[in-house]
């Protein structure tokens, strides 16, 4: 009897251990219920879309667009068989819920498919770490656990595009790229020009300024006149001095203008021989910021810090902010605060230098078993004019669809009422979008761009001297990418 009890207990313990070891494999499954919740919410989100028959049109249109392809029956056949092979679970990796919101509003998930959102914040590289592990395990994962779609940002998109973990979207039937902005295609293409995904937005960035402060500083708040006053960096600096005299700040973060410089670089951060190089644009940014900090034209806060965004309240003292269309939703919620905000006191102009900032791309993961749906999603958010129109009208986005963008840019009745009191920002962005180029990007950009800002912030806020800050930056590079050759000290 005693033995029996002992054996039982030992067996129990062993079971416990086995259960423990099995856990890692089970985890994704265990996560599903949580991840499924949004999917469960979807029917509700779908309804409005279903009410708008227009939103469903793309699905209805598809057979029509595919018909020409029917001329090649050989190519069509496997495609026709595909629906049978489509998976039931669609996994999307993302770092925030921005796209999730659009997806649930404007995309109708095919019946019987569950959408799984695996959202990991990008803080300290957590998103990429999780994504990388999943991608490296993609081959061995069960079909329903394979990543189908994942999101990537401009700073590190190259890392995924230049790998075999993303697939050629023309192979899944997405070929209609005419209306997309060229740079969004280039960004999502590998070295051989094979496109691996699309972006649902185009991110030309401009200067968003406070009307009332501009009036006080420049004596005018008219966008055309303000633009004339700040259309070069020299003029911009001069206005900064004027603003200071009146007790205002020109910008609210030392890194506010960083992207305007860094996305106009004429050479990549790292050359073909792995040498680190400082583009004149980067040096120019450092000089400008140094000058701004010393003269009190800006703050030592980072671009995402509350100290900066608090400047967007009505009692803020800052004149200019730099950002693209997504900036409204991401950074300007304080400006839209019903009590302390100042909606309508904002105008947008092109500013001293055309540039772009950020952007989210949707990349097709190799091994996806939901290729039909992938193609569908890509089309919905790029060539579906109806959805793109809604993205502009309801979400304040700038679409990755030249036709829709032009339509709004040329519409005298169109204006952004969300924050700009009816000014047509699409017209400004459309003008800027023409000048966006995707070049001189490397896979190291994220660490280098963010690292430089973080380490220099310590110099700007006075905790270290310039040499130490730069040395800290070099040590960070050494630690992260030992292959990069640093300039001789």
């Amino acid at each position, binding site marked *: 009897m005693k033995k029996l009890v002992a054996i039982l207990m030992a067996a129990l313990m062993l079971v416990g251990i086995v259960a423990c070891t099995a856990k890692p494999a089970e985890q994704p499954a265990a996560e599903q219920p949580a991840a499924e919740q949004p999917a469960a919410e979807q029917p509700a989100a779908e309804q409005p879309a279903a009410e708008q028959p227009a939103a469903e049109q793309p699905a209805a249109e598809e057979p029509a667009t595919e018909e020409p392809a029917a001329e090649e029956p050989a190519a069509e056949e496997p495609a026709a068989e595909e629906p049978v092979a489509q998976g039931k679970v669609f996994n999307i990796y993302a770092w925030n819920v921005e796209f999730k919101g659009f997806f649930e509003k404007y995309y109708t998930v095919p019946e019987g498919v569950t959408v799984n959102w695996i959202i990991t914040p990008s803080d300290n590289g957590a998103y990429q770490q999780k994504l990388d592990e999943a991608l490296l395990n993609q081959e061995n994962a069960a079909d329903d656990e394979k990543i189908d779609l994942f999101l990537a940002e401009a700073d590190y998109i190259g890392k995924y595009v230049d790998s075999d973990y993303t697939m050629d979207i023309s192979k899944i039937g997405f070929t209609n790229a005419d209306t997309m902005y060229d740079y969004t295609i280039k960004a999502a293409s590998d070295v051989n020009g094979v496109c691996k995904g699309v972006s649902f937005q185009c991110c030309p960035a401009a200067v968003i300024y406070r009307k009332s402060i501009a009036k006080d500083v420049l004596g005018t708040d008219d966008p055309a006149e303000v633009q004339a006053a700040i259309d070069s960096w020299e003029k911009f600096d001069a206005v900064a001095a004027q603003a200071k005299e009146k007790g205002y700040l020109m910008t609210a973060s030392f890194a506010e203008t960083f992207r305007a410089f860094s996305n106009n670089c004429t050479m990549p951060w790292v050359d073909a021989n792995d040498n680190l190089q400082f583009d004149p644009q980067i040096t120019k940014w450092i000089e400008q910021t140094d000058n701004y900090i010393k003269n009190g034209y800006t703050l030592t806060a980072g671009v995402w810090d509350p100290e900066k965004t608090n400047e967007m309240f009505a009692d803020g003292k800052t004149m200019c902010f730099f950002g693209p269309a997504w900036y409204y939703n991401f950074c300007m919620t304080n400006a839209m605060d019903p009590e302390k905000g100042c909606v309508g006191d904002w105008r947008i102009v092109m500013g001293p230098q055309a540039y772009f900032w950020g952007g989210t791309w949707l990349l097709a993961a190799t091994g996806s078993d939901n290729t039909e749906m992938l193609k569908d999603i890509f089309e919905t958010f790029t060539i579906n004019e109806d959805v793109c129109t809604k993205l502009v009208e309801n979400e304040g986005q700038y679409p990755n669809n030249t036709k829709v963008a032009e339509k709004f840019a040329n519409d005298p009745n169109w204006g952004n009422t969300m924050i700009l009191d009816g000014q047509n920002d699409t017209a400004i962005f459309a003008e800027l979008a023409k000048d966006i180029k995707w070049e001189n990007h490397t896979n190291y950009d994220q660490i280098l761009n963010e690292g430089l800002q973080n380490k220099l912030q310590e110099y700007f806020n006075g905790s270290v001297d310039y040499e130490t800050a730069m040395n800290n930056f070099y040590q960070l590079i050494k*630690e992260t990418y030992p292959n990069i050759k640093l300039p001789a000290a």
Partner: protein
Amino acid sequence: MEKIQTGTGKKLKSVSYAKWGYIFIAPFFLAYIVFTLVPQLLTIYNSFFETYRIGLQQIGPNFVGLGNYKALFQPDPNGTILILKYALNTLILWIAGAVPQFVIAMLLALFFTSTRLNIKGQSFFKTVIYMPNLIMAAAFSMLFYTLFSRVGPIQALLENWGVIDHTFDFFAIRVSVRGMIALMNFLMWFGNTTIVLMAGIMGIDQSLFESATIDGANSVQVFFKVTMPLLMPIFVYCLITAMIGGIQMFDVPQVLSKGDGVPNGTTRTLVMYLNGYLKTRNLGMSGAISVIMFIITGGLGAIVYKMLSAPYKDQNRKHRERKGNVL
């Protein structure tokens, strides 16, 4: 019964129930081998290789011998050896938190166990002082960050009082960031230490305290001559576990300094350094740091144990010797 079994008596004697003991502890050892020992050995193995990722592209593994260790101890252009700097940070942060932690914990443990004070509502106080330990370190850290940030309430309050001006930044000053980390570690762990030390003190025979008092010892004498020597094993245990925890300090400074060890890397601990290498899955360098930390931990543990338990051991030996003499 016994007589009947005499034939098999010898056999019976060799049936050892010890094997059941082994079977019972086997699951732990299996788990230990699979989840701790093997990874540990792999870490040591990996520390001799160059292996990291650029994006999704794997570099190596290439055998580099002690190259990773050499790289760790190479001074940067300013002449600082980073690993030593971070080790010193870790030590300072730990000591700054651990000294008050042990002093306060010891005092509280004495108060709570003192029959003379006989504090009422002990379980309430014990729960309260243990509370901070139940909060996730990262959450606690986030709370401090929010409180002391540039737009936080403390900054606003001090500005209102005119103590500091607008440009003041708690996170740009070495002492204040280190102080916050030490304070948090102290707050989180003193309750835990108090309870363990109390258990230790309560395990001491009350008659010893009584007889010491009767012999005319004052409370300071009682503490140093009776409580402390008898508490030593528990105290050493507490100290060693606290020290191991201190060397592995990570979450509090990581969250508080946004992973950067501001200002100027003065709050960056060894594990944060290690974690920095893991961004690119640099198993070679992070493995080498792990091995060094393993050696430091082991060494410090041995020293503390030797130092603190030596007098206690001596006493034990003398005690035994005296007993032997008497017998």
